[in-house]
Each structure stands twice: as C-alpha cells, then as structure tokens.
C-alpha cells in the first residue's frame, strides 16, 4: 500500500486510507465515530509501521472501518484521530482482515515536493 501527500502527515493519512481499501471501498464507510491514536518510534519508517499496526488493532478489536484520518506528526511522535463506523457486512462487503504491517517494502521518503509512505501488509 502507498500513501502520498504534501506533508508527511498527509502521506500517513493516505496510507491509512489505503489500508481501508484493502478491506473495502473507502467511500462506502461513513463517519459516525472517532478513535484517538498515538504512537512513538525512533524513525519515520518505524512510525509508519506502528501507525498502521495501531489501526489494524483498533479495526480488529472495535470491529470498525475507517474512512478518514486527521494526523499530526511531530518529530518521532504521531497523534491522530480516525473517523469511521462499525463493520456492516452487507454494505461494506469486507473482503479480508489485515493481519499486520510488515518491514517488507517499508519506505518513507520525499519524492520531489511530496512525501511517500508505503509498505506491504499481510492479509
């Protein structure tokens, strides 16, 4: 999955949206609840790994899907709010659970004026 954005935070938010797209069509998810997420990691790539795994944990334990994210990244810390709703099998047709993010293909980098955040997730 790949997230791109004008800032690192936007790239991370879009990587979160890509995570939802692995499971369902992100536009089918409504914003009826929100969850706060915070992570800390020694480098931006480990931060992406932790951010995606935090989302996987929240999706699994709350049985929710997320449509949108507000993300702030300051140094080695990330603070975010994820907006979404409980899984509704009929409407979302969720294809697969994401088991977790991996170190494979993990990359956070500047590409010209934009940021890219990507990695392989295991499903």
């Amino acid at each position, binding site marked *: 999955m790949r997230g791109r954005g004008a800032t690192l935070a936007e790239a991370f938010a879009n990587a979160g949206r890509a995570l939802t797209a692995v499971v369902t069509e992100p536009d089918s998810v409504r914003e009826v609840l929100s969850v706060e997420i915070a992570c800390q990691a020694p480098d931006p790539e480990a931060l992406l790994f932790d951010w995606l795994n935090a989302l996987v944990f929240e999706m*699994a334990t709350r049985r929710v899907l997320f449509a949108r994210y507000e993300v702030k990244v300051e140094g080695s810390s990330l603070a975010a709010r994820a907006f979404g709703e409980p899984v509704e*099998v009929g409407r979302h*047709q*969720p294809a*697969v659970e994401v*088991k977790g993010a991996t*170190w494979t293909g993990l990359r956070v980098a500047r590409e010209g004026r934009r940021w890219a955040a990507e990695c392989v997730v295991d499903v």
Partner: protein
Amino acid sequence: MDLSLLRRRSEFEWWIEPRGKMRVPGLLFASEPLVRAMDHKVFEQVTNVATLPGIRTASMAMPDAHWGYGFAVGGVAAFDPDEGVVSAGGVGFDISCGVRCLRTRLSRPDVEARKKDLADTLFRAIPAGVGSRGRIRLSGEEMDRMLRGGARWAVERGWGERGDLERVEEGGAMRDARPEAVSDRAKARMRDEVGTLGSGNHYLEVQEVAEVHDAAAAEAFGLRVGDVVVSIHCGSRGLGHQIGTEALREMLDAGRRHGIDLPDRELACAPVRSKEGEHYLGAMRAAINVALANRQVLTHLTREVFSSVLPESDLTLLYDVSHNTCKVETHELDGKLREVYVHRKGATRAWGPGHPGLPDRLRPVGQPVLIGGTMGTSSWVLAGTERGMKASFGSACHGAGRGMSRHQALKQWNGKQVVADLEARGILVRSPSLRGVAEEAPGAYKDVTEVVLATEQAGLARRVAKLLPIVTIKG
C-alpha cells in the same frame, strides 16, 4: 527465477551455492516449470536466510514457495539450539495456521440430497468473515487456560471428543506455552474470536474423495473413493497476528543488541538462548494453542450441524496439521541425532513412517499431510516419507499459492458470477463477502496438483487422496 543462478542437483532439487555471508547452501525443491515461475525474491530470501547464525544443513524452499516477508512463504530452516536464532518472520503472522480434516461416514449421494440445507446451516453456524464473533467470551484465567491447553482445553470444555486429541500435532496442546509472554493487546484481539474462521483464504469445505493414489495409506487414513470429508483451514486469529506484529518490532532491536548482522531488517530475529528469543517462543507456542483450540471449537460447531442435517453422519478426526510454526525436533545431522529449531513458514510438517510421535494407527504409513486448494479445484491428502525426514527436516508443501494479487483478481472476476459458475459445477459457495469471493476466485491461484506432484517427485511426501469441493464456507 533465473535458472542460471542455480545448480541442478537432481530433477527436483536446485542448489544455491554458498557465497558471501551464506553459512549453508540454499535448496529449492520443485519441478523446472515451478522454479522458472518462482519470483526472484524467493532466491533472495532463501539466500538471506542462509546467512543467519546457527542455521543447519540448508535454507530450503518447498515447491509452492513464493515471496514472503523475511523468509519466503514455503521456507523451511532449522537452527542449532545454542548457536542459532528464532525469527518471527520465519513463522509468519498467522501462527499455526493449518488444516484439519474430518471423516464423516457419509458418501456423496448421502450429502447430495441435503446439500443446500447443509450449506445454509453451516453458513449460519460457522462465524466467518471480517468482524465476526464467536460464541465464547474469554478473559483472565480462562484465556490463560486456553493459551496453555489448546485443543485439549477445548475438549475439556465439551467442544470435542477425547479421541480427537491424538490426531492433532502435539497431542492437542503445545508444551512450554507462556501466557504471561502474550501481551494484553494480543489477548484483547482474541476475547471473542475463538471458534471463528477468519477471512481471506480461510475456509471450511465439505469435500468428496475423488481419487486414491496409495491404497494402503488411504485404508489406514480411513479414506475411500466417494467418501465425504470436511476440511477446515484457519489459524490463531487476532492473537497470533498481534504476536507476530509485536515480535517483528521487538526482534529488530534484539538482533542489534546481540550483534546479529542482518542483510535485511525483514529477517529480524533473536538468539534461541536469549530473553527475547525465549519470550517469543513462549508467546508463539501459546498462539499455536489458540489455533489448535480454534480448529477444535469449529469442529464442534461442524459436528452440531451435521448431526442436525445428516444425523447418520459420524465425524472423526483424520488429522490436524499446522503450516506456520517453529518447533523443537530431533533430526539426523551428519549421522548424529540432534535437536534443532525447525521453522516452517507455509510448509507442513510431514513425518515419515515409524515416527514415534505418530498415533499407532498412522505410524506404519506416515503422517497425513493436508494440502489446501481452492474452492473450485482440489485439495490433497499426502503422507510423510522417510526421504522427507532426511531431505527437508520432515517438511512438505502447504497449498497452491496465489498466482495473482487480490487487486488483479478483483478486476478479473465478479463474486456473484464466481458463485454461479461454481454452483453450475455442483459446488455451493457461501460467504458474507462477494468481493472476498472474487479475490479468492480459483483462477487467482496456481495449480495445486502441480505443486503436489513436484512434492511427491522430490520425495518429500507421497499422494494418498485427491479431494474435490462440494460445499465451501468462505470467510
């Protein structure tokens, strides 16, 4: 894969000569077409695993090997207890994912008349798909009892029969599991997931024995042409996934602390004899017990359905195999019996005839090796061999492996059409997600029979019976 990188040692064995930091050779078991079709990444991953401390004999790949994270899926590697390492990437996220096969005492015509009712009742009874919950709620001490007791715990709670246990690896309970090494977050992911199938490539399938290739072994396994069996493919659910995730993170630091030089951080590992290594092994063994308990509870739910829809049935366990594990086993190395930590990631344990760990009835013919296919093709029952014990630490393939990505499959197939096409061929599919069905379309997978044939020709296991699907419950 570029064949010029390999040395062909026999028709089905391909060597990667040690070079650079490799401590042992690489060894691929496969036919020429399967090796050609393998991603170059498999070559890189087999080579990288060969550099890890304490690896013994060779870094191996089974005929269904494909690109994984760290280790290839289909990778087998054994490590010395004192000099070696344990790696979460060598086990996989879905710890102890595996297949269990039940005999039913029914034949195809018995099921054919009640097929639709059976499919619908199974679909209602088996929690499947994203967001599904099981009937059981676990917390505190009861969670820890499951983490120690596995299928044995489930049978003690009434979800199964005593006789089931000798047909499960480890007698149904993996020893030395450490519930205290399992994080609260991992336990939180498991609170209501016991007895759920999961999603993706996991399934419960009613199948017919279509062919028998080894009459003596089939008789010992209790399989005849026309018999109906049930196969269940799933793993350790959210708990296993969380342990895998946490271990990947923790082992990266552990490897650095212990001075392990990694060619790629995907190979994150810790010495077997280290605090971090022991912590992972304790948690991983608890996750193995979760998978064993989960398949046991699903067996109970399946028995309830069969006794209501087809009361003349009697479901007995043929065997239960796990294909994502690290286990301490004794193997012959350089003419001496030695203990090694065998990592099998997308590879099935396949003990040969005479192995003392097998139940009496199965010992003369070898361990049943259960290979999952797709909902439109076939699955296989193999048996372990003497040769496999020597050549691959008693390991064989695990399934077909994807031939294309989920994204590509979704573009190519429509879920409704896949269900209709399979129904026209007499296969009933029930799934909460049509998108999931499209992503799992039979055409998205490689040919499982080619993999099984190569496994047999390489001598790692031999074909006993081919199974064809009748009803598939997909997660």
